[in-house]
């Protein structure tokens, strides 16, 4: 167990290190100069431009720039935001709770909807199954920001049940504000998960032990709960866990559509204005979430399937 964890942590560090090089290099390749944004169209003296370039170390050789940046990251200093003139770490920390709440809500919705639809469609072949399949295809094919606009038009503008913009203050108000964005975010993923859990459940329904349970007089709802759902859990948990990074990335679209000032909107805006310290930090954070989600899924695997032992494969 300890060996497994150490091995995985070393792997995570290697992945994050390699990604940091890629993230840093990619932003250097992108066109545009942060100094131009900082001056925002005003004519500036060459001295002023030089001062800014010196402040952000834009004239150092690239490897030196990278080492300076990564050295800061390792000590928790992500640099200063070009647009907000504040510490990037603080900026992310102030917006993270909103996005975390949004992702948590969307994740819960995805799991509940996805598994429920999967059960429904696997246990009722025919009309119900077909309807769920069509519904999930539409959900998968609809981009979340399009869905966002539809939800706003229906539930905010027409019915007035939910606010159309902002993240709200306090817990109840926040949940109220984030409800529509969470639905917009979750539906696509729930559509995918319902397909996956449907297949896993149909596989379970064909297992001999399900027939055996039936032959022993176990009531059908118990069979679905304790045998089919339990057996499909390995698949749904693994798949569900791996959806979390996808949810984080999709917040860029949904937070923009709903005017929610979380990390997604921050990333979208920072890319537009070439606020490279913020973009670098957020991209690296996304990679970290991806790697962590994988680790959590692997750590949970023995709980879902008693035959799995940690470290047996690696």
């Amino acid at each position, binding site marked *: 167990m300890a060996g497994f964890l150490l091995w995985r942590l070393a792997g995570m560090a290697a992945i994050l290190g390699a990604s940091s090089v890629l993230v840093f290099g990619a932003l250097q390749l992108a066109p545009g100069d942060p100094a131009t944004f900082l001056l925002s169209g005003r004519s500036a003296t060459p001295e002023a431009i030089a001062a800014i370039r010196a402040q952000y170390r834009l004239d150092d050789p690239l490897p030196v720039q990278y080492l300076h940046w990564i050295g800061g990251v390792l000590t928790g200093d992500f640099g200063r935001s070009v647009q907000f003139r504040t510490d990037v770490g603080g900026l992310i920390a102030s917006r993270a709770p909103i996005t975390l709440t949004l992702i948590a809500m969307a994740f819960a919705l995805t799991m509940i909807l996805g598994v429920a639809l999967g059960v429904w469609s696997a246990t009722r072949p025919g009309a119900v199954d077909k309807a769920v399949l069509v519904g999930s295809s539409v959900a998968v094919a609809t981009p979340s920001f399009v869905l966002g606009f539809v939800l706003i038009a229906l539930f905010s503008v027409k019915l007035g049940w939910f606010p159309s913009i902002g993240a709200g203050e306090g817990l109840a108000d926040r949940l109220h504000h984030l409800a529509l964005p969470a639905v917009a975010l979750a539906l696509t993923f729930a559509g995918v998960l319902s397909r996956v859990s449907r297949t896993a459940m149909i596989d379970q329904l064909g*297992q*001999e*032990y399900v*027939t*055996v*349970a*039936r*032959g*022993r*007089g*176990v*009531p059908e709802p*118990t069979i679905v709960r*304790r*045998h089919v759902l*339990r*057996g499909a*859990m*390995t698949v749904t948990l693994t798949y569900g866990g791996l959806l979390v990074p996808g949810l984080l990335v999709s917040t860029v679209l949904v937070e923009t559509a709903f005017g929610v000032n979380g990390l997604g909107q921050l990333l979208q805006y920072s890319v537009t204005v070439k606020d490279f310290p913020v973009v670098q930090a957020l991209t690296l954070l996304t990679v970290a979430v991806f790697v962590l989600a994988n680790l959590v899924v692997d750590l949970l695997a023995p709980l*879902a*399937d*008693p*035959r799995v032992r940690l470290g047996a494969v690696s």
Partner: protein
Amino acid sequence: MLEIDELAVRLPRTARPAIDHISLTVAANETVGLVGESGSGKSLTARAVLGLLPKDAQISGEIRMDGADVLTMSPAGLRRHRTHSAAMIYQDPRAALSPFRRIGDFLAEILREEIGAKAARSRAVELLELVGLSEPERRVRQYPHELSGGMLQRVVIAAALAGEPRLLLADEPTTALDVTTQAEIIGLLRDLRARMRTGMLFITHDLELAATICDRVYVMYAGRIVETGLTRRLFAEPRHPYTSGLLAATPRVSALGTLPPAIPGRPPDLLSAPPGCRFAPRCPHVMDSCTAAAPPLVDGVACVKAEL
């Protein structure tokens, strides 16, 4: 106790019934063998007794358990039948148990709602003791992958006994096990039968094995019963060529190094329906009249020659 009367089962998209008008009985405290090659319809017969036939199968005839027809039972009646009247012991114990659940949960499953979770748990331990599994207290907390095949088959037998059924359906209970474990399981079944006084339908492809445990034997071929009788009689003087063929095909230690004569050919699959006697294409004594009409089961044998 169990009476199967002219049962016929036809699966969708097949040319002939998988079970073709068979009748058999099992009395209380009697062990009856159902013997035949794979695909002869033996396992399907056992599943039919539990009401486990596929929904799209065409079914005729009756399966009466203490007079009540299994095929027309209400869902509640069928559940009571499956928990307390008849229980099955399966061929592959590893496939019969969910790998995700503890042994104790599997055993207690049908007892929980009847006697409560706590009583069901202690009953699970008792059941494991009954089938001679060591350390039952520890076993109930283990998962199937932590037990050997023979131990798991004991668990499956214990589960079958959970509802104190009057009829045990043993579907090739030793086929997936190695030889020494086979002997242990057969010994256990004999012992339990004597103690619990349950009837048993013992399904196997192994005629010798059937001889060691059964009072009477039915020999099944391609969905039909071709011969039946007391075990001793059937062994001493088989009357159907298929029965003789099966007996001759059994390897014997007295004839080491020589392969026993196999029955040439293979049983017909469900997509072909040979006319008349289904065994005719493989029969060494085949005559013209064999393929004209299926010989009825008269006096314990279904063969044109036996009638002469």
